[in-house]
């Protein structure tokens, strides 16, 4: 049947033509006649809209009526409604929570002015795998590039800030003055530093509060930063945050908010050397109308000229990167977030399947009611819409509750999340998140709501009525579909569980530690040694000597050592003496991760290092002596014995003064990052080292390391009060922090996988139990005819296991295809790790078996007499 709205346009056109015709008959010219007719008719578009609106409101009215009817129906069935609403709330809540993370980190533009014009500039060094810029390059870019409205060079790091109140350790950013324009910041007190200010500091609101108790007189006061006197110039507004990528030092587990800003000296230092030392991070703002491609080609031209003029600098190892800032910021978090998002949408799909299943069961039970309604004249479409209305009501309840859950979960997620996740603090439920939740709600309501409706379309009213009886096979129509849904659920759950399993195994691999290494008993205390007093290495050595002596005397201290890690500048000449392996520049470039660790003789006892060849460093060595680890020995000396060979440590290999002999080789030990393999390492006694600023004191304690921290802290402070301990952690804590982002991903994925397993358990139980209930009579007859109870038991169990087998087979194939997407989240585990696959499949099979057991037992103990009487 056609709708009254069909051909509305024709109807109106016909009307106007008739009026025109009449006007012509009255003597008007055709043009006049038509104009008069149109005038008399009014605005055609508006008329059509108003006419359509008449019907839209009817549709809405009826839908609302259906929803009301649905709510009433659900009130009669509170258990069913509660299960559906809770399942939905859980799934939508999880999805909304993850989406709010995705929104904050990947979608929302940076809260700086014109965020789409901000770009990240860097020279990617393929050996160091970092995008940094050398100071001279930055100055050249700034002077020569015309594409940018501003270009800021910056770095972040820990500094010792001392005022009249005392000294403390703080994270500061050194920035060039373009930063203020790029970030759009305005001072609430005082001013920012300009190009002429070399000794100033701008405080964040937090630092202003914590260290200066909001005293406005602090502006103009003098404080010292790393022993240098600077003036407090201004204070930033509350809520201003440093949001540029921090790619050095702070990027691992212990990223912290920037507490203050000092001028970056790059501009006035006029560095002519140092093209090889890339220490600046650079962000620029494109001029309006300049495309990123144009900026890139301009910069590439400048860079080519620099490379031509500086043949000694190794630009061949570098390539220019110009990336939208938003993309650069999100790059580290994107793979993990996308995997999590995919995982959580799997949970939503499983929830949908589960609910569709429940609705199918309910639909089967209500078939008679529906058949009667169709028989007395209700339109099929109307009945289907009524189902939709009911399901929409369910979805809206679930969605609202889910949004509430997401709101509650957000703070929990934020405490769990590693601080290195960029812009996590901006996670809120904003309009976009609300929209997402609404779309998820309506989408799921539609998906699970339409399934029973489609099924209903096929059923014939008269057949249902003819069968009449309660126990007929009326409901079995949906059973194949329900089995399919459950198998799909199991497959999805399996994929999630395998993902989580792979991550658990990665964790296990990361945390594997050799015997003798007890990070929970090792205390790591950062002593940055700042200020002019410690610029000379002799001073640093004296401090270390005295401090080690005092610390080691403390009760409960088993051993102590200094530790300072760095990378050595390579020399340009090749060794003449075959017994001397110098680390030439080329080699350093190809061994980018050689770690040079300044230590003292107690280090092996602190860490439990195992000596493989030769011996460890003694308290004092007769000559320059070093120890290397196995990876290093293998890199430089191959299969040969490294002990007795030499390494050139200085600029000139042939200078015997900088040549050290290798007295021992120790086994590899990962003690700074858990999620990277051990790197080639050289242990240099601090007496030999040229500088060890920013050192850490490592202390092995006999008992509880945390309890000993205050005593050790004061022992260190007693050496020099102006050098406070910046941070104290057990090594176990520090190691855990190094994999905080991975742990966060594991928590979330683990939660999703567990929910998926739970839902799958409910789903499979529901289908099997329903199947048994449907066949109670048949089973009764079988038993009456002499079937063994064990046979009945097996009959039901087999049904469950068939489903499980189907789901697991499909799931394994899907996991095989999908888990490779999470390779970057794994450590030392292949995405197709067979043992994980087998273990997870077994867990799922066991779950399916457990879920089938109850209905199976129920079936086995059916009393044939009572079931047959019911007929």
């Amino acid at each position: 049947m056609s709708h009254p709205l069909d051909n509305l346009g024709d109807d109106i056109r016909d009307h106007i033509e008739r009026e025109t015709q009449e006007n012509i008959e009255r003597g008007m010219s055709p043009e006049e006649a038509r104009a008069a007719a149109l005038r008399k008719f009014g605005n055609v578009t508006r008329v059509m809209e108003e006419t359509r609106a008449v019907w839209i409101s009817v549709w809405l009215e009826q839908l609302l009526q259906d929803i009301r009817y649905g709510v009433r129906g659900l009130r009669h069935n509170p258990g069913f409604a509660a299960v559906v609403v809770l399942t939905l709330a859980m799934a939508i809540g999880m999805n909304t929570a993850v989406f709010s993370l995705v929104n904050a980190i990947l979608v929302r533009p940076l809260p700086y002015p014109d965020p789409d014009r901000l770009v990240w500039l860097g020279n990617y060094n393929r050996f160091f795998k970092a995008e940094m810029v050398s100071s001279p390059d930055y100055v050249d870019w700034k002077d020569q590039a015309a594409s940018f409205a501003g270009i800021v060079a910056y770095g972040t790091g820990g500094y010792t800030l001392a005022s009249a109140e005392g000294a403390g350790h703080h994270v500061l950013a050194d920035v060039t003055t373009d930063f203020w324009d790029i970030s759009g910041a305005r001072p609430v007190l005082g001013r920012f530093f300009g190009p002429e200010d070399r000794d100033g500091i701008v405080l964040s609101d937090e630092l202003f509060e914590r260290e200066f108790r909001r005293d406005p007189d602090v502006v103009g006061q003098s404080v010292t930063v790393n022993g240098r006197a600077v003036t407090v110039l201004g204070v930033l507004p509350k809520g201003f945050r440093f949001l540029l990528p921090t790619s050095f030092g702070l990027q691992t587990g212990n990223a912290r908010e920037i507490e203050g800003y000092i001028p970056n000296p790059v501009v006035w230092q006029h560095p002519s050397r140092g093209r090889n030392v890339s220490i600046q991070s650079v962000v620029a703002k494109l001029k309006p109308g300049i495309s990123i491609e144009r900026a890139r080609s301009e910069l590439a031209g400048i860079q080519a000229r620099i490379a031509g003029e500086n043949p000694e600098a190794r630009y061949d190892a570098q390539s220019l990167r110009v990336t939208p800032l938003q993309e650069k910021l999100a790059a580290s978090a994107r793979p993990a977030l996308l995997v999590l998002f995919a995982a959580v949408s799997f949970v939503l799909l499983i929830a949908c399947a589960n609910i569709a299943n429940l609705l199918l069961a309910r639909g089967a039970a209500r078939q008679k009611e529906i058949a009667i309604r169709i028989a007395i004249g209700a339109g099929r479409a109307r009945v289907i819409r009524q189902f939709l209305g009911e399901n929409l009501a369910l979805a809206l309840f679930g969605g609202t509750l889910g949004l509430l859950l997401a709101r509650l979960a957000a703070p929990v997620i934020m405490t769990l999340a590693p601080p290195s996740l960029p812009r996590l603090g901006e996670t809120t439920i904003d309009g976009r998140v609300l929209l997402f939740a609404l779309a998820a709600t309506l989408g799921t309501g539609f998906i699970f709501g339409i399934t029973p409706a489609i099924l209903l379309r096929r059923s014939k009213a008269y057949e249902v009525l003819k069968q009449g009886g309660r126990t007929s096979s009326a409901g079995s129509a949906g059973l194949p579909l329900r089995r399919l849904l459950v198998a799909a659920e199991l497959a999805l759950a399996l994929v999630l569980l395998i993902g989580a399993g792979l991550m658990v195994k990665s964790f296990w691999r990361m945390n594997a530690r050799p015997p003798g290494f007890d990070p929970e008993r090792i205390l790591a205390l950062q002593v940055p040694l700042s200020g002019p007093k410690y610029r000379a290495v002799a001073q640093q050595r004296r401090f270390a000597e005295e401090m080690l002596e005092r610390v080691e005397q403390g009760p409960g201290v088993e051993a102590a050592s200094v530790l300072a890690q760095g990378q050595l500048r390579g020399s340009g000449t090749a060794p003449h003496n075959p017994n001397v392996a110098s680390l030439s520049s080329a080699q350093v470039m190809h061994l980018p991760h050689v770690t040079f660790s300044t230590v003292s003789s107690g280090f092996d006892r602190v860490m439990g290092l195992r000596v493989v060849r030769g011996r460890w460093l003694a308290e004092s060595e007769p000559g320059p002596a070093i120890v290397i680890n196995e990876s290093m020995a293998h890199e430089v000396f191959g299969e040969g014995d490294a002990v007795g060979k030499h390494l050139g440590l200085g600029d000139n290999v042939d200078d015997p003064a900088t040549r050290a002999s290798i007295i021992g080789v120790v086994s590899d030990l990962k003690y700074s990052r858990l999620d990277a393999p051990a790197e080639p390492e050289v242990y240099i006694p601090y007496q030999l080292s040229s500088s060890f600023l920013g050192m850490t004191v490592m202390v092995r304690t006999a008992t509880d390391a945390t309890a000993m921290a205050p005593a050790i802290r004061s022992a260190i402070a007693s050496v020099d009060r102006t050098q406070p301990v910046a941070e104290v952690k057990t090594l176990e804590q520090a190691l855990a922090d190094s994999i905080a982002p991975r742990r966060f991903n594991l928590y979330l994925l683990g939660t999703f996988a567990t929910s998926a397993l739970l839902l799958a358990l409910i789903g499979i139980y529901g289908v099997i139990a329903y199947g048994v209930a449907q066949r109670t009579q048949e089973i009764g007859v079988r038993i009456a005819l002499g079937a063994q109870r064990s046979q009945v038991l097996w009959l039901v169990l087999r049904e469950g296991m068939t489903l499980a087998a189907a789901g697991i087979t499909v799931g394994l194939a899907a996991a095989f295809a999908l888990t490779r997407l999470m390779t970057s989240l794994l450590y030392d585990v292949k995405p197709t790790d067979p043992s994980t696959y087998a273990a997870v499949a077994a867990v799922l099979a066991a779950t399916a078996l457990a879920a089938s057991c109850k209905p199976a037992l129920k079936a086995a103990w059916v009393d044939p007499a009572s079931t047959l009487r019911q007929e």
Partner: protein
Amino acid sequence: MSTKDDRIELLQGTLDLLILRTLLPGPAHGHAIVKAIERDSEELLLVEQGSLYPALHRLIKRGWIGVTEGTSENNRRAKYYRLTAAGRKQLTVQTTRWDKLARAIARILRPESEESRP
């Protein structure tokens, strides 16, 4: 023929009643309905012709009128609107209501004329 200034704009809701009344003799297409209203009111009532269509659809929605496709006198396809049984009943109800309303308003506006009545 009355001049433009004499014309009265229709009261809200009265168009529906007039449409029902116009369809009482038999089905008609949209243009004929407006023309009939204008003619029968001796062109005193001003109907913006377009406003007919939302009104027609409101009436269809309530089930008071129905639509049939037909061919008009000059062999053109057109929609013919006709009164349904429910619409016929509604017309009676609304006419009575309108009469009451008109009497009540008249009584308030001209009380003396009411007294002069027998």
